[in-house]
């Protein structure tokens, strides 16, 4: 999903805008990519799959869609043929379908939840969208249009029409195929929650009736909520899109044919396989910037469709894409598709930005983007990462969103740090820096303990809690896991998890077992607290000081022949039990590192030495990112007030200047 949580996004935008006043934008067109303005050229059909006999995925669905976009009415009239292969192992009579666009209707569950979380949001009529099925028949059975009924498996909200169910008169035997023929109409909203139009721009996602997933012995077809995303089966997509000839289109498939029609339209034919969704975007104002990257699975064509005013960001998109492709290829596994399309939404269209679909992502930038604000890179890398976790591993984003968003956010920290520096991978200005690790941790600290990570996405306390915990906390949990099993081992575990479960729908349990297997460690104690629990982790140096050992003999000159007893008391303030290291440093430059299992509420270390205490520090390697308060993790005897003075100066200056501005009225 659009990675930035509401709070992080707002913070970033605020910072970017503030910084924009003082910084210089990156010059345009400095990359090697070539901007052109024409339709995305055809690419070979399934270039790497042409000779293969085995498909990459178990293909359950085969969609054929003919769609016609009406740019005046912002509607799509389409027919869909879905061949569904019954691999459920049992006869099936009932088939649920997602009708996601109906979420943008008043009183829908999505809208109700949006209003619950953000009562002041201004929903205008143009933000409403819908999908209407005008005809549904099953080959060999006949017209079943009147048999459709809406179901609400999550909240029984009768006004919600995001899931439709059809019951066939007779069951489809196990292993057999059933063919649905559906005629439907989309009314696209003005861009909202990833989909819709804005002026001449279209982002068409989650736009066709999509069958649910048979998973864990039952149909899994949840309603569309304000925090949930998507879950679907793998298969093939053959899509014809008819639209005005001046439109430049980017889609999650290979363009295999393009035909101009006599009515001023053109029909583009796309094919995609071993994916579980198909989306597309169009605008006559796009500039197509092309490039390519070659990895272990062959060459990937890169198409970046830039909106007006944003072209300066194109080289930044390309650079981060190539870097991220290389890192994932090296760390996680091959990128098996021959294409990747990036759609850069136009100004004001950020609701369409930061979203992932198979082989197509949407990015996010502004006309003025200082070089030191790495927002375009960050969003692009995050959305690309979804190609692996959402796109290929394809976990259930309704029920276990952390497996996609959380792991992806962790990988984002690793990728951004590798490409842009550990402490400068989000903001890199001479006067201000921020790394992705810190950013994820800060996100987690916004609402750290309202819900466990494993909660179903729509059952979180609110959207902010969902964001903080699913993205930020999971990333922070995995960063902290590095302390237990090591960064390399965790990377190897992720590689194993990906290679083993790609094109399937694994669960959280599969992930945990893989990590335990690769690391050779029982990690239940950790995951039980970090993933399924809500305990907070917070360790503190409660007390640290040295006393003269011969305190009752004042005639002894301590400085010359003194012996000291040093006390260091460490407290576990939170309920999260985690083994930690404590480094105690003395003024003879010697240090001692203690290991504490954290079992008790506190522990005291006592040392009798000729030297006095200089400092005591919990987690000296700075690996326990989950710790809520890092400032109380250490104690230095000799106060260092430089940071305080620096902040005091800034606060005082701001306060003085604010007073000056207000006094202008006097």
């Amino acid at each position, binding site marked *: 999903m659009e990675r930035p949580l509401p709070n992080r996004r707002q913070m970033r935008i605020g910072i970017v805008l503030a910084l924009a006043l*003082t910084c210089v934008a990156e010059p345009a067109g400095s990359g090697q990519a070539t901007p052109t303005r024409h339709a995305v050229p055809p690419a070979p059909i399934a270039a790497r799959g042409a000779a293969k006999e085995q498909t990459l995925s178990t293909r359950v669905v085969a969609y054929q869609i003919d769609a016609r976009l009406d740019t005046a009415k912002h509607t799509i009239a389409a027919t869909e043929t879905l061949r569904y292969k019954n691999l459920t192992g049992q006869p099936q009579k009932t088939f649920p379908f997602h009708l996601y666009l109906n979420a943008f209707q008043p009183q829908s569950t999505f809208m109700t939840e949006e209003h619950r979380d953000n009562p002041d949001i201004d929903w205008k009529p143009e933000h409403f969208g819908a999908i209407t099925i005008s005809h549904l028949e099953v080959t060999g059975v006949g017209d079943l249009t009147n048999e459709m009924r809406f179901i609400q498996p999550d909240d029984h909200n009768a006004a919600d029409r995001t899931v439709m169910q059809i019951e066939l008169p007779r069951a489809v035997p196990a292993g057999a195929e059933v063919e649905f023929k559906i005629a439907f109409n989309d009314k696209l909203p003005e861009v909202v929650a990833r989909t819709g139009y804005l*002026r*001449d721009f279209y982002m068409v996602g989650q736009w066709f009736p999509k069958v649910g997933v048979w998973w864990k012995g039952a149909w899994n077809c949840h309603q569309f909520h304000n925090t949930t995303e998507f879950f679907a089966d793998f298969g093939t997509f053959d899509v014809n899109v008819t639209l005005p000839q001046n439109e430049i289109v980017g889609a999650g498939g290979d363009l295999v044919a393009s035909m101009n029609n006599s009515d001023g339209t053109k029909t583009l034919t796309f094919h995609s396989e071993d994916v579980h969704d198909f989306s597309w975007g169009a605008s006559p104002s796009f500039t197509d910037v092309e490039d390519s990257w070659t990895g272990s699975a062959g060459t990937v064509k890169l198409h970046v469709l830039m909106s*007006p*005013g944003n072209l300066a960001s194109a080289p930044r998109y390309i650079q981060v894409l190539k870097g991220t492709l290389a890192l994932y290829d090296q760390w996680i596994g091959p990128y098996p598709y021959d294409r990747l399309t990036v759609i850069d939404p*136009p*100004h*004001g269209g950020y609701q369409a930005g930061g979203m992932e679909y198979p082989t197509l992502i949407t990015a996010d930038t502004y*006309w003025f983007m200082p070089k030191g604000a790495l927002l375009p890179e960050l969003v692009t890398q995050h959305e690309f990462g979804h190609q692996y976790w959402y796109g290929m591993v394809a976990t259930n984003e309704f029920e276990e969103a952390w497996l996609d968003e959380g792991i992806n956010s962790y990988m984002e920290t690793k990728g951004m740090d590798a490409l842009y520096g550990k*402490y400068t991978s989000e*903001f890199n*200005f*001479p*006067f201000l*820096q*921020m*790394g992705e*690790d*810190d*950013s994820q*941790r*800060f996100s987690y*600290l*916004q609402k750290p303990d309202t819900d466990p990570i494993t909660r179903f996405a729509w059952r979180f306390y609110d959207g902010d809690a969902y964001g903080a915990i699913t993205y930020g906390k999971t990333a922070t949990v995995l960063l902290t896991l590095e302390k237990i099993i090591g960064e390399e081992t965790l990377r190897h575990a992720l590689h194993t998890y990906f290679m083993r479960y790609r094109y399937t729908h694994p669960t959280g349990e599969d992930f945990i077992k893989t990590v335990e297997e690769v690391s050779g460690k029982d990690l239940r104690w950790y995951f039980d607290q970090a993933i399924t629990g809500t305990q907070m982790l917070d360790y503190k140096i409660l007390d640290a000081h040295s006393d003269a050992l011969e305190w009752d003999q004042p005639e002894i000159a301590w400085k010359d022949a003194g012996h000291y007893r040093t006390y260091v008391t460490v407290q576990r303030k939170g309920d999260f039990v985690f083994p930690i290291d404590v480094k105690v440093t003395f003024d003879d430059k010697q240090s001692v590192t203690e290991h504490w299992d954290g079992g008790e509420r506190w522990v005291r270390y006592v040392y009798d030495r000729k030297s006095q205490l200089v*400092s005591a520090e919990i987690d000296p390697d700075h690996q326990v990112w989950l710790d809520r*308060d*890092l*400032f*109380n*993790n*250490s*104690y*230095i*005897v000799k*106060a*260092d*007030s*430089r*940071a*305080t*003075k*620096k*902040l*005091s*100066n800034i*606060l*005082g*200056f*701001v*306060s*003085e*200047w*604010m*007073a*000056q501005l*207000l*006094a*202008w*009225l*006097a």
Partner: protein
Amino acid sequence: MADATPRTFFSGASLVWNRQRVLWLIYVVNFVLAYFATRGTNERIAAILDHSLAADQLVHGFNLGAASSLAINPEFPFGGSVSASLLGATLFTIFTIFATGGILATYYSGQRLHAGGFFEACGHHFWRFVRLTIYLLIVLIPVFILGGIAHHVYDRIDKQSISPMPAVHFLEAAIVVLLLLPICIRVWFDMAQVIAVAEDERRMHRALRRAAALLRHNFFSLYWLYLRVSLIAWIVFAAGLHIWMTHLRPESILAPFLLSQFLIIFWQACRLWQRASECIWYREHQRAIAVSAPTYDPPPAISQEPLAAPTV
């Protein structure tokens, strides 16, 4: 008729320089109020950072992650510091209203006022200037409305335009207008304050009327007199911030402090420069009228008797 000649402009600067005690008084009050407004926060920051190794991230560079963590630290009441600063700013504004009478009396008389005379003028004009401030807030309401309209138009252009640039250009133009318009109002009220002091005008609406007439007949000279000092203030302020952010070592404490305080003092000096220039301009204007008129009845003089109280 008086004109905003370079002489007036530089005379204003010279007057501020020669009556430095006014500047230092304003600066010290501003500094002390800011100090007390931020003291509580600083003490809490010190309690968290001074004995923590994690504070190092804020010394060598400025790690926004560490600063953000500090801001949401349960022991760090960030909200409290904002309200304390707002209170300090409000108190400083009240003080400025109070001090304006003394400042203008000092600058208009062209002579050094003793502390007694200065504060007498402050008290004498305080409630008049409170009323003027209320009028100013009322007059600024249309500017705020205009700002709202500009925002609305910006949104509309932004929404309709394929490229973001038309809206950006409109915004740039709107910002310029919305900055220049309040300056016009400020000059008007500045002149009303000068008239109130110079003529000992009790009725502020009459002072405003006379100032409006003055402004109408001498708009460009008065406006330019004010604007060029403002431009100097903004340019120096921006340059100072740039130097602070990019050229000073992150670890240094003294240099940023000195630079920040220089910027504050310079900002205040520029405001006083505007005041002084306006006073000189008005004095010259009155002299010009006196020369051209056959009879001249001088305005009530401000007491310049030396007092025993310490000088300001």
